[in-house]
């Protein structure tokens, strides 16, 4: 991507965040909170000490992995809002496999669990992909319905088959995963875990897939104009399904890292809305795998602030969900401006007079 375009996008996105924060401020005032105090807590607490920064990093892991999957599906022209459900399925699979591979060396056990999660999530992504490609069922509707179904299935699993046999509290949850399937922490006393390695690895894989391979090329062509792609001999339904499977597999793996890195057992609400936040991150990154990293960092800060808001202020943490919603609304509304070549050109003329016309593009 050329220089001015990048700066242009960043400018527009900053404006989006700024407007969202203004809306947030109005809500904070409405609920009787202190705007500056609240925002100070949201923005400064993560940097207060290393432990809190690690909390942000921890949240980046599922955000990144899910957002990468969304990048693939959205670039292929299919909206995956079923990451919640795919993540649930990933957790179930990883959890079940974890107990089955007890005793195997870590280097085999962990990949097996992650693979299982990817397969489960991928299979769960296959369903809406197939329904869209072959039966023209709107993926927006089918993925939402599958989210509810998956949540129920998950609840059943932790209530009956995966239930901790030694639990006496009556809370539906699995037993603690065997040690050989747990992702290790980088620093003692922090929550930051090895899932980040998978996340970074996936950034590279998805980037190469989308922009350097023929598969990615075909997926992007199918997403940009299904008719032209079909005309060009691209099997659009096939790539639609593949994209959904990849997207679902990513969400499934995100579930596995959350389970094996952070929670150590499958319990209720394990997805904590990451499936939807992942969409915001992907949008915020303009569906570019590398931009997912900073975008996830930003939303990691926002999600971490939920904890602090709860403890330190009277402002309900639901505020964060509201702000995410506002950011989506603003970003999609500004998309016309973001992708508008004329306003880009104006921007370039205004601020980049001296720059020679660059010809490279991502």
């Amino acid at each position, binding site marked *: 991507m050329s220089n001015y375009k990048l700066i242009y996008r960043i400018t527009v996105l900053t404006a989006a965040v700024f407007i969202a924060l203004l809306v947030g401020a109005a809500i904070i005032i409405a609920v009787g909170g202190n705007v500056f105090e609240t925002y100070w807590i949201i923005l400064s607490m993560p940097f207060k000490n290393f432990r809190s920064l690690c909390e942000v990093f921890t949240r980046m892991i599922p955000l990144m992995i899910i957002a990468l999957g969304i990048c693939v599906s959205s670039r292929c022209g299919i909206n995956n809002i079923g990451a919640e459900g795919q993540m649930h399925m990933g957790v179930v699979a990883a959890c079940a496999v974890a107990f089955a591979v007890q005793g195997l060396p870590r280097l085999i056990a962990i990949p097996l669990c992650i693979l299982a999660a990817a397969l489960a999530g991928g299979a769960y992504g296959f369903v809406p992909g197939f329904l869209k490609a072959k039966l023209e069922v709107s993926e927006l509707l089918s993925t939402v319905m599958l989210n509810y179904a998956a949540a129920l299935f998950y609840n059943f699993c932790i209530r009956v088959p995966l239930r901790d046999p030694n639990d006496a509290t009556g809370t539906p949850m699995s037993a603690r995963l065997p040690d050989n399937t747990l992702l290790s922490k980088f620093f003692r006393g922090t929550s930051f875990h090895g899932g980040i390695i998978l996340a970074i690895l996936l950034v590279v894989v998805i980037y190469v897939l989308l922009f350097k*391979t023929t*598969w990615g090329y075909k997926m992007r062509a199918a997403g940009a104009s299904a008719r*032209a792609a079909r005309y060009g001999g691209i099997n659009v339904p096939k790539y639609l399904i593949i994209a959904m499977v990849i997207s679902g597999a990513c969400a499934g793996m995100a579930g596995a890292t959350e389970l094996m890195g952070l929670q150590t057992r499958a319990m209720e609400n394990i997805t904590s809305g990451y499936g939807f936040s992942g969409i915001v991150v992907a949008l915020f990154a303009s569906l570019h795998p590398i931009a997912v990293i900073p975008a996830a960092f930003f939303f990691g800060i926002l999600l971490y602030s939920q904890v602090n808001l709860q403890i330190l202020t009277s402002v309900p943490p639901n505020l964060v969900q509201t702000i995410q919603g506002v950011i989506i609304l603003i970003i999609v509304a500004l998309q016309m401006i973001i992708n508008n*070549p004329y306003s880009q050109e104006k921007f370039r003329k205004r601020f980049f007079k001296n720059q020679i016309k660059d010809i490279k593009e991502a």
Partner: protein
Amino acid sequence: MAKEIKELRVEHITKRFPGVLASDNISLSVGEHEILALVGENGAGKTTLMNMIMGLYQPDEGSIFINGEEVKFKDPNDAFSAGIGMVHQRYMLVPNMTVLENVALGLKESWKTVVDLKMVRDRVKEVSEHYGLAVDPDAYIWQLSVGEQQRVELVKTLCQGAKFLILDEPTSALTPQETDDLIKLLKRMSNELSIIFISHKLNEVKALSDKVCILRHGKVVFEGNTSDYTPKQIAAMMTGHEVETTENKNAPVEGEPVLNIKDLCVKSDRDFYALDHFNLDVRAGEIVGLAGVSGNGQKELAEVINGLRKVESGTIEFMGKQIQNMTPAQVIKRGMGYIPEERNIEGIVPSMSIKENIILKDSESSRFSKQHILNNKVIEDYANKLRDEFDIRSPHIHVPAGSLSGGNIQKVILAREIDRNPKFLVCVYPIRGLDMGAAEFIHKQLLALRERGVGILLISEELEEIMNLSDRIAVIFKGKNQKVLMKGEATTSRLGELMAGVGD
């Protein structure tokens, strides 16, 4: 009821769109009961100008006068109440509503608590009897033929009390015979109405109009009485130079057909048979033109040859192998090339760069990728080479193909299709909407391809294009091949009769 319009005059109208000067200081006037023909190539700014008269666009500069008084139209309602009505090139009828409802949409008097369809029905009856425009008020639009829809459009406009009619390329979808009828009708109507008539078919302009006004690149380049000029003179002023058409002067081709279509039956999107036992063959190194009014199965024929549509029965034999119901990829692999009708959304992926569009059909070929990894360097060199060879005007090969002009988009498609050495080319409306320069370039390329022994199926509505380029001409009507004529046998009137379904 609107007052009589003695004169409609526009003065110094200028309209800019991002990157385009659509109207450049245009002035013209139309008097009572006068028919003005507004001619010019596609993209010359005719429709934009008319949309400003209708209040759909606001001019950036200049003004509109009716009977000497300046008027400002904020939206079409203002134009309607001044007595101006327009029939757009693409009919503005809601397909899943009845004729009555469509008329009612534009008839504010009928908007009571409940839509007063009885009143609308009376009005439709009155107008259609007065002008001799028969319409079935209870038919749904989707049930009507193109000609019938045009009558509905006229009735709709007249029901609004229009005294001044603007017709945007009213004959573009009609057969020559239907066109003659329309011209007679308009002649008759001009006793009561004033008409602006947009066209680029010069014989119609000659037959109908009193005055002619020629636009080129948003400017009026000529205005005068039609009777003083020959069509050739008008054409010269329209394009800025004497028209030189590229012609195929070669001897007829002998040999075995490369493409042989037998008894082909294909369904349209709306589930009726668009091709009905269609037969056609094309030899290597031969251009076969397929004439016909659009909507008679041309689109389906092009799609079915290229694997984009299902065959119900019949066979398509290509280079000795049956290819019906193969996937597009399989057909492409066998050497089929295709220049589709809708170049902006089907021929290219608009948001992808020229470079990426060039390899649309070949991303998996060993030339551009190994083990599914794209070879960026080779692709770029190739795209640059084609850009030079085919004179694609763009700053570089990384601009989105959709941002190019129509002619350049067509060149991108042509470059891709020709340079992959096809054995056959299906070519649909290849020069529609292009300026003469681009059209000439494309015709030359097609003839060169013919020299190389490639069979070409040229589907077009422009009889002149077909008669100039083809070795043989087939005529399609209601999904059937009416007749195949040799180049020498075809005349406009003969083709016209065949296109209207009159057998001989």
